[in-house]
């Protein structure tokens, strides 16, 4: 059942919030041992919270738009109960003393937190395999990865354990797993949703957003969590997107840009047909398809992994074994420097260590200009490519795009272990998502035509990218495409 149907049913008294919570918990109990989508499940807290909602209804209180909706939160989101592990040994016993803004807003809207979703360690990974708590599996084929880094959020939604979940997206971590698991995933504009209480990976790129089975559910969650927050100075001081009523209003004669670079010869044949299917669907709805040139997409991976790693090396410097997190047991004669180095080496897994070292190198004296600064200049070129696509071209007469259509990844879900010893191969899976974060734009992944691999139908995602802070139009276009499929 969708989140909107659950909330309506609870409000109308068709069923109770406790019944809904019990149903979700039973499904988690049945499916989680095989999928490993959850790190922690909050059975008692969820039932208690659901009872409160039922009591509020009984006493005639007005219920929120997400009344009784079970949700999962990615485990890099701080809650004032349970653990916040970030998928890492470093924080395996960390208990946050406060709750993140986006999570509090969900709770205030009536949502019931079922548990914390598994994830790549510190959100660094594209497969869910780097978690200290073991890999999450793809519900469509347990031998394959669900994508990452919001691996547990995607698997929990795709397997029907919860209707919606929160993920975070730094370089595709909501959109890529949504695509590989056959669900909808939305990365809002940078600054749309508060990052307060989200464990930082790369602060200029990180953004929280919903994963759900329908565009409407993602819109419902975005509406609840969006908006300015005094605790995050980068949140935009503008009214949240008014989505609820307008979602089903089609965009008249939309202009959809398809980047020349989306037709890469390395794309899996299934990705080519999924993209073709989405283009055909838009044409049938009267859209004008125009080719756009995102010339610097080919440099996106290089720029992204330098910028993100540089920011990560700085953000993760706080984990020193002193104030919180894992502390190594020192031997005789070992000092403070040993405490730092050994706590970090024991606490961080290999992918986190690689990115810290890559970022440290890119920021170090003598290499700063060659790597970090160069990546930031390429970031500007990437942003200009998008700006040009979203503006009319007076030279050629090409109209401004309402959205840009691309695959969400170049391949369907790969096998567990297939890319885990080759970091560069893993990074290249993010080619279609990272430039959106570098430019700060909103984007949504929708299920495209699945592809059959080894006798199993594997989902594939198509991605629509919108203008900054125009989630309303982006979601209307996404709703059109969803309705056409």
């Amino acid at each position, binding site marked *: 059942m969708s989140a909107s149907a659950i909330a309506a049913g609870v409000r109308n008294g068709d069923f109770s919030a406790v019944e809904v919570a019990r149903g979700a918990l039973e499904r988690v109990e049945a499916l989680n041992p095989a999928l490993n989508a959850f790190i922690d499940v909050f059975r008692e807290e969820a039932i208690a919270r659901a009872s409160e909602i039922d009591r509020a209804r009984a006493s005639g209180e007005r219920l929120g738009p997400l009344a009784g909706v079970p949700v999962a939160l990615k485990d890099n989101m701080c809650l004032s109960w349970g653990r916040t592990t970030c998928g890492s040994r470093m924080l395996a016993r960390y208990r946050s003393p406060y709750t993140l803004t986006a999570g509090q807003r969900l709770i205030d809207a009536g949502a019931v937190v079922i548990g914390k979703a598994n994830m790549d360690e510190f959100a660094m990974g594209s497969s869910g395999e780097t978690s200290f708590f073991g890999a999450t599996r793809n519900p469509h084929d347990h031998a394959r990865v669900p994508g990452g880094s919001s691996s547990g959020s995607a698997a929990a939604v795709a397997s029907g354990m919860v209707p919606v979940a929160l993920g975070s997206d730094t370089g595709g971590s909501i959109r890529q797993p949504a695509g590989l698991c056959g669900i909808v995933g939305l990365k809002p504009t940078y600054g749309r949703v508060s990052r307060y209480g989200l464990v930082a990976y790369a602060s200029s790129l990180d953004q929280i957003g919903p994963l759900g089975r329908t565009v409407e559910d993602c819109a419902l969650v975005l509406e609840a969590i969006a908006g300015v927050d005094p605790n995050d100075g980068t949140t935009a001081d503008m009214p949240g997107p008014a989505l609820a009523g307008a979602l089903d209003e089609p965009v008249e004669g939309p202009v959809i840009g398809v980047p020349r670079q989306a037709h890469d010869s390395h794309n899996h044949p299934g990705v080519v047909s999924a993209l073709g299917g989405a283009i055909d669907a838009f044409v049938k709805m009267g859209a004008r398809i125009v080719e756009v040139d995102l010339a610097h997409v080919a440099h996106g991976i290089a720029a992204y992994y330098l910028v993100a790693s540089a920011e990560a090396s700085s953000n993760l410097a706080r984990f020193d074994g002193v104030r919180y997190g894992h*502390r190594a047991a020192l031997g005789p004669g070992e000092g403070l420097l040993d405490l730092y180095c050994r706590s970090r080496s024991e606490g961080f897994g290999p992918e986190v260590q690689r990115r810290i070292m890559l970022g440290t190198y890119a920021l170090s004296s003598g290499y700063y200009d060659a790597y970090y600064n160069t990546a930031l200049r390429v970031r500007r070129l990437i942003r200009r490519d998008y700006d040009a696509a979203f503006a009319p071209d007076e030279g050629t007469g090409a109209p401004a795009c309402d959205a840009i259509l691309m695959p969400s990844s170049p391949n369907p879900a790969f096998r567990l272990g297939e890319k885990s010893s080759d970091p560069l191969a893993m990074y290249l899976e993010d080619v279609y998502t990272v430039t959106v974060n570098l430019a700060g734009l909103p984007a949504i992944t929708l299920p495209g035509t699945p592809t059959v691999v080894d006798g199993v139908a594997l989902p594939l995602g198509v991605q629509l990218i919108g203008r900054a802070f125009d989630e309303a139009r982006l979601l209307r276009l996404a709703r059109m495409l969803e309705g056409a499929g």
Partner: protein
Amino acid sequence: MRKVASLSRLAITDEQVALYRHQLSDVLGYMERLRRLDLEGVEPLTHAGDTLNRMREDEVGAMLANEAAMGLSPERTGPFIKVPKVIGDGGGA
């Protein structure tokens, strides 16, 4: 490799040095493509947001109780966080 590990405050084994050197050389080799672009006159873009940071009033708001924050430390002595000797032999971070 050892220099970068040390700057990163990571203690890595000989085996890890070999593995990371190989993997990060691959990655840095791939990054070389950025240098082929003409970046003359292109300003770095550090942040996608167009607005500058907003400041808020300097007012005391809700905050964590001392014990809620201090209680997170892995080793304590009374109201203090316990760390190895900082000054002299074995110290000097």
